[in-house]
């Protein structure tokens, strides 16, 4: 066998392992790992630590695979958006075909291995989540409707349900409450981002609500979803996955979140431009803590329960 074909011209970039890892959207993956782990621990059935570790790892790989497929499909719009221009494909570090292959291979591997490690229902749910994110959201909704992130948000909401199903092998109301929490949180989180990343979505022709219906409507949508989210989040405190700690967290954070959404709603666009979208950026940062704290509280309630401390 000749090694001539392995010679690349000097100066040509050699894709590094870190570039492939960046394709898997590690920050999104960390959120998926955390919420899936909370779903798994909050479930009333104990799971062997090795099975739990392997299952969460395969859920993370599945999430990463859908991220790679998303980057492959969206490479054209990623290149024109400031926020995403440095991603591995638009920056030329990874060829698009390799991203597609990696995404497909890891999708198959993660679903198959989760089926073997946990159960077929969780594997089927992971396969559906990858399909939903890569095909329904990325290929269809994202460029077709301003409701893209509302419906597409479901993809990010599945991990705690998968975690729950890994442990129990079935669905339950509590699992869907965790799903609803992420599902209702996604629109205000992304619309706040769209408000201050103003030119990005315009440049890429992505029909975000800010582009199709204007910024005033987007501000109204943020408060509408935040009110519904607050009712849901506080209400969850009275269910089997809630407890005093969760309820206290939910009351404090939802009060702050509602105040932030109200400020965004009341504010004219001119004021936002003048101060560089300070209120919108603050709301966006708070939204990250909001989700982390709610799921952290559910986790604490579950961990304390065996000692007679968590839950009601």
């Amino acid at each position, binding site marked *: *066998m*000749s*090694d001539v074909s392995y010679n690349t011209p000097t100066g040509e970039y*050699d894709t590094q*392992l870190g570039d492939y890892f960046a394709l898997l959207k590690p920050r999104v993956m960390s959120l998926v790992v955390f919420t899936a782990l909370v779903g798994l621990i909050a479930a009333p059935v104990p799971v*062997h630590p090795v*099975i739990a570790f*392997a299952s969460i*790892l395969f859920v993370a790989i599945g999430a990463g695979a859908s991220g790679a497929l998303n980057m492959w499909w969206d490479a054209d719009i990623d290149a024109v958006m400031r926020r995403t221009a440095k991603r591995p494909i638009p920056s030329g570090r990874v060829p698009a075909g390799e991203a597609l292959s990696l995404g497909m291979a890891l999708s198959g591997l993660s679903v198959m291995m989760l089926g073997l*490690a946990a159960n077929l229902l969780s594997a089927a749910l992971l396969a559906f989540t990858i399909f939903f994110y890569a095909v329904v959201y990325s290929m269809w909704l994202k460029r077709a409707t301003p409701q893209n992130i509302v419906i597409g948000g479901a993809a990010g909401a599945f991990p705690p349900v998968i975690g729950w199903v890994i442990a129990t092998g079935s669905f339950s109301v509590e699992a869907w409450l965790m799903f609803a929490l992420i599902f209702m949180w996604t629109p205000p989180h992304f619309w706040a981002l769209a408000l201050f990343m103003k030119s990005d979505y315009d440049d890429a022709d992505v029909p975000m609500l800010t582009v199709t219906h204007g910024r005033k409507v987007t501000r109204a949508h943020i408060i509408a979803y935040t009110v519904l989210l607050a009712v849901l989040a506080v209400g969850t405190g009275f269910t089997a996955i809630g407890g005093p700690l969760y309820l206290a967290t939910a009351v404090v954070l939802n009060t702050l979140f509602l105040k932030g959404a109200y400020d965004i709603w009341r504010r004219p666009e001119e004021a936002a431009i003048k101060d560089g979208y300070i209120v919108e950026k603050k709301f966006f940062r708070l939204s990250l803590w909001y989700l982390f704290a709610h799921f952290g509280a559910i986790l604490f309630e579950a961990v304390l329960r065996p000692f007679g401390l968590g839950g009601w």
Partner: protein
Amino acid sequence: MALRPEHEIHTRRRGRNVGVGLMLAGFVVLVLALTFTKVTNGAFELPRAEELTQ
């Protein structure tokens, strides 16, 4: 010409190759640990001889 170990591509891609190797080794260990856990948990208990003859 054979692909010799001292070829320039080996040096250039060392980090990548070591990374892939470690990941594959990790995967093997994980599958082994999973198998061991499943077998010792009784999930794959073989049917007893008398059950098979019935």
